């Protein structure tokens, strides 16, 4: 909101430097956006928070200055001379939609002479960057900038039947506004009409048909109250934001309506002449008297941590326009002024006192009691996961939670349900809340490829949004599921990424059992992005996630030139089997006895089957089994067969083992593999 330095001086003495004033105002809640010199005047731009519509006029700002500097505020009286003819004989007002327009007042001036505004008026408006139109329109703008109440002047003789009807629009009704554009009106908007047609949109903009022109002689001055929500919707719907709608949206002083109307007429008589009809047409609710608030002095210390002199408290509250009665030693009854709808409760008054008294008086070095705080297990483990991923050479990415529908459909193993969709896209077409992080990471990979970056190793830890799973929220129905995922994309192959995951799992819990199996049939349809080199990972038998190389088709869908492997893991499963604090295991005292085993098996036999047999029949000294290699070379094995090379180790806590002690175990393993899998020593 722009204010003029010279104009403010009409209401309050300004003898301080401009900079001192703007700093003081900033420290009282009006941020200073800038100052500029305008032809002998100074325009000060102040930011007014939405709870302070009273400061959207010079009087409101002057009042703040008067309070801050403890000076009197000079308020114009607004007592225009009235003629004899009663206004009721000249016009009438009917309000058909009191919800949208709780109060409407009209005054009439006849015989005004429309012309250019006097220099003082033009200068005032020029400082605020407002164009001068004519003397009457300028006065309505001037009064709005003085007290915040928007006003409108109609050419009375252009109103059919010379009367006003405030109503909702008729079906298909249109209005040509004073900007000479045509607007289509909709239900819920507040139309100012005459007997036949719309002549304005209440609180938003006037109509072209009834605007003041050089031929105008008789005026109807509107000063009214409109419902903030309706004004906001109308202004947004029609993209018609005006200084008027800006003020009505925030709610105005209900008692100021009458003052503004009188002030406007007073100034019109002064600059355009004419005769003011006697009285006012005033339709709708009269403002209710404000109720008193009990203010306990002790609340200042309780909230602010400092005490304020009771006399100063009374001075501040009274200067802001409150009526203050002393109830007893520690209590006041405070009746806020009509222009401060934001003052409703004791705490609101505490803020007023603090704001004017000055927050700089609150100390910044009090002793705040200590309290224990600790990291949750989850936080610790998530930190561990991040460290493991960076150690594995992955950079942490951060991608948007919403994706395009095409991206969303590319990979969705965790739910078959349609994704959640935002009503407005979060960014260019991305309106779908992601069900997997993988598509986002592949998109990031594509960005990197197009930038010519060679090594693209990314991980992200973020939530996916799963429409099917729900949990009860404390007080209001159920919300969709959100699950934290760890996802990766790498230029390495299946085994490189699987290896990184194995190392991660080992970092979280060296004893946890990680298995790679075929992707189960229920997940397979959602994995179209992946080539056959893929697997479902299980941690202690529970589904942990998926890992796989992206198929050629998948690469081309993401416009990727080079091969990549992706993985997505459920962080909750990682955490479930992780150890926050590991317990010491004594390292083995005696060396292990290691056997290399080379088995020839049929092609369908899986390593996991062999491993299972070894673990089952390895005997009490079995310490470990480790896959090494598979040979398929035709020089070594016939077609349909393969050779699997692996290592078995045996160990005893009692001493170094001899071959004699484990030969039996070794033989049994080979025998069982032969019997159950048809394996023979290679």
């Amino acid at each position: 909101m722009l204010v003029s330095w010279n104009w403010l001086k009409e209401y309050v003495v300004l003898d301080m430097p401009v900079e001192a004033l703007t700093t003081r105002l900033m420290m009282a809640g009006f941020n200073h956006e800038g100052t500029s010199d305008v032809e002998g005047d100074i325009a000060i731009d102040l930011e007014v928070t939405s709870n302070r519509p009273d400061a959207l006029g010079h009087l409101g700002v002057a009042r703040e200055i008067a309070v801050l500097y403890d000076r009197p505020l000079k308020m114009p009286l607004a007592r225009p001379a009235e003629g004899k003819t009663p206004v009721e004989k000249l016009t009438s007002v009917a309000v058909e939609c009191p919800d949208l327009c709780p109060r409407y007042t009209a005054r009439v001036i006849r015989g005004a002479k429309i012309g250019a505004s006097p220099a003082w008026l033009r200068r005032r408006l020029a400082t605020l960057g407002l164009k001068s139109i004519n003397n009457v329109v300028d006065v309505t703008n001037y009064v709005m900038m003085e007290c915040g109440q928007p006003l409108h002047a109609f050419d009375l003789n252009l109103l059919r039947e010379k009367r006003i009807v405030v109503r909702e629009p008729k079906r298909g009704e249109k209005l040509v506004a004073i900007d000479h554009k045509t607007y289509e009106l909709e239900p819920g908007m507040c139309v100012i009409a005459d007997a036949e047609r719309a002549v304005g949109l209440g609180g938003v903009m006037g109509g072209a048909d009834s605007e003041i022109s050089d031929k105008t002689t008789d005026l109807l001055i509107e000063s009214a109250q409109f419902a903030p929500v309706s004004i906001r919707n109308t202004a947004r719907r029609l993209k018609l934001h005006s200084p008027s709608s800006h003020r009505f949206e925030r709610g105005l002083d209900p008692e100021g309506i009458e003052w503004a109307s009188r002030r406007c007429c007073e100034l019109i008589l002064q600059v355009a002449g004419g005769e003011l009809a006697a009285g006012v047409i005033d339709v709708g609710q009269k403002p209710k008297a404000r109720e008193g608030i009990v203010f306990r002095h002790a609340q200042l210390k309780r909230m602010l941590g400092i005490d304020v002199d009771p006399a100063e408290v009374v001075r501040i509250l009274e200067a802001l326009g409150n009526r203050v009665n002393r109830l007893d030693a520690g209590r006041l009854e405070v009746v806020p002024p009509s222009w401060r709808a934001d003052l409703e409760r004791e705490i609101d008054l505490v803020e007023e006192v603090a704001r004017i008294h000055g927050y700089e008086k609150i100390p910044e070095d009090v002793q705040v009691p200590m309290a224990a705080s600790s990291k949750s297990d989850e936080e610790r483990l998530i930190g561990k996961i991040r460290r493991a991923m960076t150690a594995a050479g992955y950079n942490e990415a951060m991608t948007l939670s919403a994706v395009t529908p095409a991206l969303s459909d590319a990979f969705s193993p965790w739910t078959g349900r349609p994704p959640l969709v935002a009503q407005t896209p979060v960014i260019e077409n991305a309106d779908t809340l992601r069900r997997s992080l993988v598509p986002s990471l592949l998109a990031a990979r594509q960005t990197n490829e197009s930038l010519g970056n060679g090594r693209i190793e990314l991980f992200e830890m973020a939530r996916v949004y799963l429409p099917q799973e729900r949990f009860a929220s404390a007080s209001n129905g159920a919300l969709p599921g959100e699950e934290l995922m760890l996802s990766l994309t790498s230029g390495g192959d299946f085994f490189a990424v699987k290896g990184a995951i194995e190392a991660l799992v080992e970092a979280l819990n060296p004893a946890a059992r990680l298995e790679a199996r075929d992707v189960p049939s229920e997940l397979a349809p959602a994995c179209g992005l992946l080539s056959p080199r893929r697997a479902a990972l299980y941690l202690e038998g529970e589904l942990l996630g998926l890992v796989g190389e992206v198929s050629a088709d998948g690469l081309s869908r993401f416009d990727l030139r080079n091969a990549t492997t992706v993985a997505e893991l459920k962080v909750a499963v990682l955490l479930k089997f992780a150890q926050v604090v590991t317990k010491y295991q004594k390292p083995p005292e005696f060396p292990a006895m290691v056997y290399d085993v080379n088995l020839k098996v049929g092609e369908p036999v899986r390593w996991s089957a062999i491993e299972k047999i070894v673990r089952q029949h390895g005997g009490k000294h079995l310490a470990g089994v480790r896959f090494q290699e598979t040979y398929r070379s035709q020089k070594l094995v016939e077609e349909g067969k393969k050779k699997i090379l692996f290592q078995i180790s045996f160990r005893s806590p009692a001493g170094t083992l001899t071959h004699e002690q484990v030969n039996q175990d070794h033989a049994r393993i080979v025998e069982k593999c032969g019997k159950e899998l048809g394996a023979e020593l290679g």
Partner: protein
Amino acid sequence: MALSQFLSELEALVTAAESAFQSAADAAALETARIEYLGAKSGRIKTVQKGLGGIDKTDKPVAGQRFNEVKARIESAFSAAQERCQNATAAAAVKAVSRKAEKSDAVIPPGAFDPSESPPGCRLHLGRLHPITQTIETLKEIMGRLGFSVADGPEIEDEWHNFQALNIPASHPARDPLENFYLSMAEETSGAGPMLLRSQTSTVQIRVMENRRPPVRIIALGRVYRPDTADATHFPMFHQIEGLLVDRQVTMADLKSVLRMFAMSYFGGEVHIRFRPSFFPFTEPSVEVDMQWHDRWIEMGGAGMVDPNVLRAVGYDPEEFSGFAFGIGIERVCMRRHNLTDIRELYKNDVRFLEQF
């Protein structure tokens, strides 16, 4: 084939080859890698060379030149690795000898080892944490020292937690559908009421207080969403950290003092705090917080005393308890910390950006 695609393949090839040569642990592994990349018959470089034939005439000189460069780079990476492996073998031999011998300088003549010599050491690829994560960790750590524990809540919220309980009534402009990311409602959401992506982390305050009696001393942090057009300083998704302390006898002096300790811990020096009055629905009084650092006031965030309506909404008696809350935009802190000027860089995930932190 387009020139750009060819060049990109070259780039990928050289990166992969260098990495393979560098990571080869011994001579045998190096030989395998050599065959893969430099093999005379079907090495990958041969395969790429074949692509040269498909390049437009006009682009050929550029493509050919780049190919030769890449080939030279790969070959030099190989010879560097070869040298390294030989040295490793030699070093192992030296070690073996030196174990036996009393002095190792008996084997390596003085001055024969030059540590400044090219090629450089075998460098590991260490991944980096995103700068936002790093900023969050720093802020969390400081607040942890001040006795604040981390609390968490959903990103998809209902109107009660995002608005109503935070003293933002239905008529408030902040609830306008165009100011928020409301979700389109499907059949399954019957009964839950409208849902939206949370516009602030204050929702977590409500969820924590609903389930706990004071004292409450928490921070909440995470992603929040507002329909801002993306530009250098705005992004529709960003991160917030929010602190809440509710107890008997909590005052604005406590708020100022905690924020000062926070700022001093962050900057590691004498910092002063300034409050400017402001307006937020969920606090009363509400202030903007500035901190003075080297004679400059820097905007820190918003704060205030928890509004009695918020305390009542979670079943706390505002006559018995009081509290303060503050919120800080993490992107802003992060950008100032790292001299970033465009918030969009944070979410582009260019590895040349990520690897700087």
